[in-house]
């Protein structure tokens, strides 16, 4: 039986994933692996994932290096195997390769190496900066550490993902409605994020005209309510999705939110939680002392709720002034999907439910 080389490829882990970032090897070249063994880790724009061997065999060639950006379906490594000879060719349009692939194809001549001190080389690699693009200021035309340190930083994956989504948001015509919610009489059984998320999801369920998306010139209405909850983490903004939170009791929802926030901050969210379809976003900056703000939509969601600080405020009451617990919320709406009055009605329902 002739050993067959099977490529281990960059997996597609979500509908929107077109490329992944290679993170680290768990196994070395020449290692024996069984199907299901974790071989390496890669990252999508949302989450880090382990990649498992698909067949048993020997890791013959490791092609990826940390921070390499690899298109979905491209090989990361090759596994030499005899295990699936029978399947050889079954799923391929080309006959399977019987011989080890030729040594690295005639590599193009290496570009001249930019002279650089080791520390500069290391920093450039860490930041994904091509040394050849740096103007050296050291002796003998050598790139100094300080030459690299002043270069613009390549954003981390989380930053890039937010940038991509917000650029798409900038193409959406959106308006914002503000209103002050009176929370004085709300029974504070849970945190404000829980209570407001729960009430907002229920309100959205009652206004299906806003639980919708504008896609390719047509309105699409959603059967479910998916709330993407904005969570600030050390890796940047993450938005795990709570599916149908209105159908949970506030107590259950409190547990789900506490769990998801903790795992978001620990970098342990599953891809499914991050890529489940969301129909709206809830963002609460009140805890950071923000009075009120505009949230930007995350297409194709049609709404986003921005929650400000819950605080006692002096307000007019019948016959004079009083102090009431108030909260300014901002409702952002995709104007292609709905108009101002629809948004106002949603806010009125929210106020009523509270």
């Amino acid at each position, binding site marked *: 039986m002739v050993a067959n080389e099977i490529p281990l490829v960059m997996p597609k882990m979500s509908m929107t994933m077109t490329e992944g970032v290679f993170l680290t090897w768990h196994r070395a070249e020449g290692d024996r692996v069984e199907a299901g063994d974790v071989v390496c880790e890669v990252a999508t724009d949302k989450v880090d994932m382990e990649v498992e061997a698909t067949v048993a065999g020997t890791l013959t060639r490791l092609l990826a290096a940390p921070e390499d950006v690899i298109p979905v379906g491209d090989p990361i490594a090759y596994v030499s195997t005899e295990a699936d000879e029978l399947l050889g060719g079954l799923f391929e349009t080309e006959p399977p390769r019987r011989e080890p692939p030729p040594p690295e194809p005639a590599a193009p001549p290496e570009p001249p190496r930019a002279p650089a*001190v*080791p*520390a*500069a*080389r*290391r920093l450039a690699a860490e930041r994904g900066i091509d040394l050849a693009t740096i103007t050296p200021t*050291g*002796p003998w035309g050598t790139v*100094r*550490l300080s030459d690299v340190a002043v270069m613009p930083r390549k954003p981390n994956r989380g930053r890039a993902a937010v940038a991509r989504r917000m650029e798409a948001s900038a193409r959406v015509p959106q308006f914002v409605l503000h209103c002050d919610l009176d929370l004085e009489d709300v029974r504070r059984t849970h945190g404000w994020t829980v209570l407001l998320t729960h009430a907002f999801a229920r309100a959205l369920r009652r206004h299906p005209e806003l639980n919708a998306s504008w896609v390719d010139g047509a309105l699409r209405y959603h059967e479910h309510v998916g709330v993407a909850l904005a969570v600030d983490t050390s890796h940047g903004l993450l938005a795990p999705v709570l599916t149908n939170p209105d159908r949970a009791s506030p107590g259950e929802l409190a547990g789900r939110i506490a769990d998801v926030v903790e795992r978001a901050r620990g970098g342990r969210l599953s891809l499914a939680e991050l890529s489940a379809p969301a129909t709206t976003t809830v963002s609460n900056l009140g805890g950071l002392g923000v009075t009120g703000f505009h949230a930007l939509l995350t297409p194709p969601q049609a709404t986003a709720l921005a929650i400000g600080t819950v605080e006692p405020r002096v307000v007019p009451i019948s016959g004079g002034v009083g102090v009431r617990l108030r909260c300014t919320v901002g409702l952002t709406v995709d104007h292609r999907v709905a108009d101002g009055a629809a948004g106002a009605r949603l806010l009125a329902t929210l106020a009523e439910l509270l």
Partner: protein
Amino acid sequence: MTAVAERLLTYAEAVREALAQAMAADERVFLLGEDVGVYGGAFGVTGDLVHRFGADRVRDTPISELGIVGAAVGAALAGMRPVVEIQFSDFTAQAMDQIVNQAAKIHFMLGGAATVPMVLRAPGGSGTGAAAQHSQSLEAWFAHVPGLKVVMPATPADAKGLLLSAIDDPNPVIVLEHKLLYKQSGEVPSSAERVPLGQTAVRRTGADLTIVATGVMVSRALSAAEQLAADGISATVLDPRTLRPLDAAPIVDSVTATGRVLLVQEAPRTGGFMAEVAAQIVESPAFGHLRAPVSRLCGLDVPIPYAPQLERAAVPQVDDIVASARELVARW
């Protein structure tokens, strides 16, 4: 151990105290060399020891370095703990066969059946107007011979503590003292506290560069670091203290942190011990942290001149260290 009384002793007095305490503690320890007895040593190191321990244990010898070291090797093989003094380290050239081909080899060639617990003390270095045959820094010769340990104390406390460890050691140990240091004073513990061989001392810490220096260059590097601090350049100063075994880890750690290193030796540049330190740095994980070429500041590749101005110019002085460090930081 409870409180250790420290007093100021000169480097020479510290060596003498180590010898006296070692001889008092172990009757196998004895001294031999030219003029170590009645005269008290060419640099006055052995002083009155002959009166305290007698001429059997502080033995004046004929003027034959080969004979002195040969006798010491034989005594060591026979179970004694000889401490040889060679008047000038330059004269070890006369004794090299006994040092290199006998003392360093016997333990290995006899399959470990015998040891040569001999200590050879000898002053090296320039600065006293003693000219080319009495001023060399020959540490690299000895460091290149497997089987020898090589010690270069830079302070009175180390002169005592390292010598005590050398006398304890079952291997031949070459202790290269420095003539200019003999009269330097410093705090020295009164107890027979050992300074272990193979432990680099951190003399000063700073973030901008690491200076590694040995022997008399340690105090010059510290003076230089003081001046550099006034310019806003902060330097770490490391003193390996023993070249064999070399404790490279603190050097690697410091260079990893500062990214710049200046290696200072009195010995001529070519084939000097700091070339070995440089190689160990670039072979280590510190490599990726280097932000400047590993730099050496060394004696010139010339025999030490007799004329005082030229003698001074032939080896690094404080100002040279300051200038080299400044340039290293400015350029890189």
